[in-house]
């Protein structure tokens, strides 16, 4: 059980993390997801013990490890957690074996056990053949594996990852994703994983905390986030392609939806209507619920076509079966379904 209670971190007057409370069971794969600067890395560094919280507690398996209210903390090394850095932070003057072995030496593990554990994790990560190379002599993906091997060698019960895949190319990233999930099953360690890539979050996580401006916007399973986004931010940040968010404003007796009067009764005067991309269609002619947009993108995805239109800063995406006849730059009609999938208030909170 990993619990975070009312955790806050202030740097001077700036609140990087605001009143975060999350708890996940043992063996969970928790992803902290959010845009850059949302506080997710600060939260991770507090979990690792590198930063002291300004307020709130962190509890691993019932044992408090950080308490910002009492200015009390357990040293990074004694909280039984391991951190994989974004830059990998491999010690350049040690070989691959040396990098993996050194933390065990520091733990005073006997020599024979140490050698056995090192070859075990090197095999687990499929890098045994690189044991005597130096970090600058191996590729980025291999360095990544060494960094992970070094972190799991002492068998931490909590594994922390700081955007580990962001320095890899697209193909390698997909492979390492699978590898990390295999590793998670093999070690059974509770894992906290920081990323700004929502695809990584959706594919790997058992639990996701979506963060923005230091706050947790929503905490739940990946399916929760897609099926039932709590805020407009989550609705537009999560999912491929992201959901469409159309502003609705009261105008006289009726309502303007995306700048056009439509026969729609919103729950509030001024709100946002969410439409899923797969619910949108294209139309050849203007109709009661169509919006004319400039066609800006089309791309083939899994046998279907993703079409994106843009007008006055409003961006709509639809998943359709046929490529539209219009060319890029021409006007096409996006047809909204009769009812939106969800309503959000002007402040971004979900209404229905």
């Amino acid at each position, binding site marked *: 059980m990993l619990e975070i209670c009312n955790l806050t971190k202030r740097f001077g007057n700036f609140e990087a993390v605001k009143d975060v409370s999350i708890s996940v069971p043992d063996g969970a794969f928790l992803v902290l997801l959010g845009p850059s600067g949302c506080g997710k890395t600060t939260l991770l560094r507090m979990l690792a013990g*590198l930063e*002291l919280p300004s307020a709130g507690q962190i509890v691993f398996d019932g044992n408090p490890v950080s308490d910002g209210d009492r*200015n*009390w903390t357990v040293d990074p090394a004694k*909280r039984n957690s391991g951190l994989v850095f974004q830059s990998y932070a491999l010690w*350049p003057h040690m070989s691959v074996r040396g990098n993996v072995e050194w*933390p065990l030496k*520091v733990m005073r593990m006997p020599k024979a056990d140490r050698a056995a554990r090192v070859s075990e994790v090197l095999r687990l990560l499929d890098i045994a053949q690189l044991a005597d190379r130096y970090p600058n002599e191996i590729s980025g993906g291999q360095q990544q594996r060494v960094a992970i091997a070094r972190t799991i060698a002492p068998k931490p019960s909590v594994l922390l990852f700081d955007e580990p895949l962001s320095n890899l190319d697209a193909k390698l990233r997909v492979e390492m994703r699978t590898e990390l999930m295999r590793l998670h099953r093999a070690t059974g360690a509770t894992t906290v994983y920081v990323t700004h890539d929502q695809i990584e979050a959706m594919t790997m996580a058992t639990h996701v905390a979506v963060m923005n401006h230091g706050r947790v916007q929503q905490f739940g399973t990946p399916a929760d986030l897609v099926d039932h986004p709590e805020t407009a931010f989550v609705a537009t940040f999560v999912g491929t392609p992201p959901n469409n968010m159309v502003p609705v404003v009261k105008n006289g007796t009726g309502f303007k939806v995306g700048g056009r009067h439509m026969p729609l009764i919103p729950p509030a005067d001024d709100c946002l209507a969410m439409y899923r991309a797969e619910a949108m269609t294209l139309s050849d002619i203007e109709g009661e619920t169509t919006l004319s947009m400039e066609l800006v993108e089309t791309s083939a995805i899994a046998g279907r076509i993703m079409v994106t239109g843009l007008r006055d800063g409003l961006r709509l995406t639809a998943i359709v079966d046929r490529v539209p006849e219009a060319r890029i730059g021409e006007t096409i009609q996006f047809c909204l379904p009769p009812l939106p999938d969800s309503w959000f208030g002007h402040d971004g909170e979900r209404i229905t």
Partner: protein
Amino acid sequence: MADAAISGQGRRVIFRQGTVLKAVVLLLLVALIVLPLIRTVLFTLQPDTIEAWSDVLSGRLSKNLFYKPLGNTLLIGVVVSMACVLLGGFLAWLVVMTNVPFRKTIGVMATLPFMIPSFAAALAWGALFRNDRVGGQLGWLEGLGLDIPNWLAWGMVPTLIVLTLHYFSLAFTIIAAALATVNSDLVEAAQIAGAKGRRILMGIILPVTTPALVAAGSLCFAGAVSNFATPALLGLPVRMQTLSTRLFGMIEVGQVERGYVIGILLVLISGAFLWAGNRIVSGRRSYATITGKGGRAKRFDLRGARWPLCAVAAVILISSTVIPVIVLTASSLAPSSANLFSNWTLHYWLGESDPSFAQGIPGIAYNEDIVRALTITLGLGLAVAFTGMFVGLLASYTTARFREGWASAAITQISFLPLLVPGIAFGAAYIAYLGAPIGPLPALYGTFALLVIAGTAYLLPFSVQTGRAVIQQVGGELEESARITGASFVRRLFAITVPLAIRGLAAGGILIFVKIVRDLSLVVLLFTPTMPVLSVVAYRYASEGFGQFANAITVVILFISIAATMIANRLQTKSQPWLQN
């Protein structure tokens, strides 16, 4: 393992992270840098010394005490800094941007003059150009039968030339570094837009490098106005005073408070110019260009001008490096500098005392004073290298790990404060600070400790900068990832930090060593007969007319500086074994 996170292993964090370290470093820096300066100012504000201000600024003597030296100082500063930017900029442009022949050689040679102590060039000038105006030995050119006019032998003109030939290499280093960051894409984009050579130079390269030009100009200005050796050797014999020679003279004759007042004014002037330069640079947007790909810049084709420009560069470089070294060496062997290249003798190096020769002064190898000065100088260099790197590392580690808060900002600002203070004024401040007993602490005047402490403080900007480079190499996540394993501070230091940083540390230490060994302006006031250092001994011999001994000592200093610099360069550039591919 599973429940290692027992609550009993936690600890209370009493202070915020880094508070203790910050406080220690801040106290250290205040004691080393701020207190001497404050104490100097306070000294001049006492009831019986405050008169010194009116004496210097408005009294009957103020014209000679302050305003004439001020005029000379400003003239030197302005002319030298402009000449340095022109010369250094010209050479930097040749090396970085054109296809001039021997580019690499020119680049290396252009950094050398700054390695040579400025009094070496002044002494060499004397050996070549002295005339009979002040008596003593004649220079080589007079010896050849040429009639050297007074204005070329003494005073302002030779001072300007010698200082320019010394400081242009500082300007070169700064401007060349800036030009090297002008991404070749920028130039190519201008070429695609149809701009030709001159247009690219005026429209793209010059504006982008303006901050570097301003920085180079203001640093050369600050260096030239605070230089002591050159105006002292070439100007003092004909009563040309600058603020730094005035400051020295006042303290020598015991008018300490007037000396301090002049020193404070000198700090304010050089500080004001550096500050103004900094304002101009930081007021505008930074053009630091991001170099993604290190694309080969297309070099300007100089066509027919290649060899003529190469010859111009060669004249500048040879006259600023090769000629002084040859002249000094020859003059340390020749009994008369009027006949530099004849009757050579090793007496000034190896001779025993002989009453008929140089008033019985033995050669420098048998001269106890000089041998003692050599040991003290080397010891001082080593000691300052160690203490300087230690304090520099500590300060840069503190500011790198704990960036937030006013304390870190204060540490950075204070550690660069000595840049604003001319060496001779800093020396004066240290006499005011530690020359008399403070409470239970004894007076340190005339002790080795004073030299070490003052040298450490004076070179802190440099050692902090070096320390920062080292920390950047090993700091951050590399150190954090070691911390997470639970390794203690000492263990991290020896297993991670030192192996990664040792070369950078050694190189930085050696450069500090060189700077202190060839320094004259800081130690000239701290010098006492019981605690002699080589540069001051050389200066004394030169001003007493024993040019050969001065030159021989200078050759020794030159040799030590150049050898040490080469070792440092080697250490810095030689790649680390685990980085070899």
